[in-house]
């Protein structure tokens, strides 16, 4: 036996509503996050990932009220990220009932945030979310929701993040995001060879076969629109993965 591959719906939340964009733009309204979260938990999602993409800090404080509602609705683990800058932000989000907090841009600007948060809450609470894009023959880290290119190498940054205490990496492949042409397997392979923490593949899922292809190189498979728009049902996805000898948590009688 081993850990089951986690199927993870990702919910982008703006001003308290779940939304979905393509390549980080063209954003559409989907649903109340708590309603969607409950539906996914019932359908067999193993975990949920939320990104609060509310633009302003004032609105974000209000937007984060969804975290409490979600915690009341579901009994599977979930992480919350988006705009997390300080250890105090961790406190707020964890206090509202999230199990993990993910950091992205702020950790690039201030890597010690990972270290401080891991020391205070444990590595299992600290998820490093990386937006990466292929530039030439290597992958570079992007910040500010994909708007800002850095000189950081994705693999090096992931290694550094883990050394600082990140307990999990969510790898968002920006070129693949929203394109539904499959996960970036080459990138996942490189990460898998390098890291000793769970890797969550993000960006590109469009068909069931994409999940099957990426499963050997990731601990969790994240997707958004295919679930939000009902193109792939979690239960049948897991059944198909199971038939391909991929270890998943199949639905049991409640």
């Amino acid at each position, binding site marked *: *036996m*081993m*850990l*089951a591959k*986690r199927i993870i719906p990702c919910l982008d939340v703006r001003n308290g509503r779940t939304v979905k964009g393509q390549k980080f733009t063209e954003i559409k309204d989907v649903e109340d996050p708590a309603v969607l979260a409950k539906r996914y*938990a019932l359908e067999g999602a*193993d975990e949920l990932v939320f990104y609060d993409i509310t633009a302003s800090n004032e609105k974000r404080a209000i937007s984060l009220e969804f975290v409490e509602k979600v*915690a*009341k609705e*579901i*009994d*599977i*683990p979930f992480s919350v990220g988006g705009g997390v800058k300080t250890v105090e932000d961790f406190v707020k989000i*964890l*206090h*509202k*009932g999230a*199990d993990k907090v993910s950091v992205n841009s702020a950790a690039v600007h201030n890597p010690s945030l990972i270290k401080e948060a891991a020391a205070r*809450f*444990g*590595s*299992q609470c600290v998820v490093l979310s990386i937006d990466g894009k292929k530039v030439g023959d290597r992958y570079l880290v992007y910040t500010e929701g994909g708007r800002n290119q850095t000189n950081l190498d994705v693999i090096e940054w992931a290694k550094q993040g883990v050394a600082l205490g990140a*307990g*999990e990496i969510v790898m968002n492949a920006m070129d693949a995001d929203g394109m539904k042409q499959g996960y970036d397997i080459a990138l996942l392979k490189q990460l898998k060879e390098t890291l*000793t*923490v*769970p890797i969550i593949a993000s960006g590109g899922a469009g068909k069931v076969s994409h999940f099957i292809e990426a499963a050997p190189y990731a*601990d*969790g498979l994240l997707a958004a629109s295919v679930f939000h728009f009902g193109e792939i049902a979690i239960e049948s996805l897991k059944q198909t993965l199971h038939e391909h000898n991929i270890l998943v*948590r199949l639905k*049991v*009688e*409640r």
Partner: protein
Amino acid sequence: MHVIIDYDVGNLGSVIQSFKKAGFELLVSRQVEDIKNADSLILPGVGAFKGAMNALKQTGLIPYIYDHVKQNKPLLGICLGMQLLYESSDEFGTHEGLGLLPGKITRFNTDLNVPHMGWNQLRFNQPNHPILKYIKPNDYVYFVHSYLAKTTQDTVIADTDYDGSVPAITGVKSVYGMQFHPEKSVPVGAKLLKAYKEMIA
């Protein structure tokens, strides 16, 4: 009344919620009177062993927890709360635990990812144990931990496999531990709490 021991170990929201859903009449408290009168005690916990043990000591409740167990009343530790029930832990130095379960807490010795984080399957060591009444072997529960109990096999009700046996549900007399998070393990966790409630009634 069932009492969740409140000793500053983070958000208890989901633990409270899951026990309430399972039908427990519940109180979250650190008052001596509540602990003394409790039908059962629940010891939650996340974080590191030493900090949690110190926080528990600070409440002054430890003697009353021992009294409770002496009267053969049920005590359930969850995740780090379970680890505190053992004799000691190697987490960041050696630290004494409550010694209510035999054995000690040591770090995973494996090439696999640590923490052991995710959904793993239960194997039944004591298939007829009433706590397992509503679940099946190989049902999945959610684990998040870097340390595990090294204990005597006869105290392990169910385990999981992560490069070796990992005690998942343990128990001696009226003292029980769950290494995973029943409150995050829908629907198997809820079934375990339901069985636990019936068992201690």
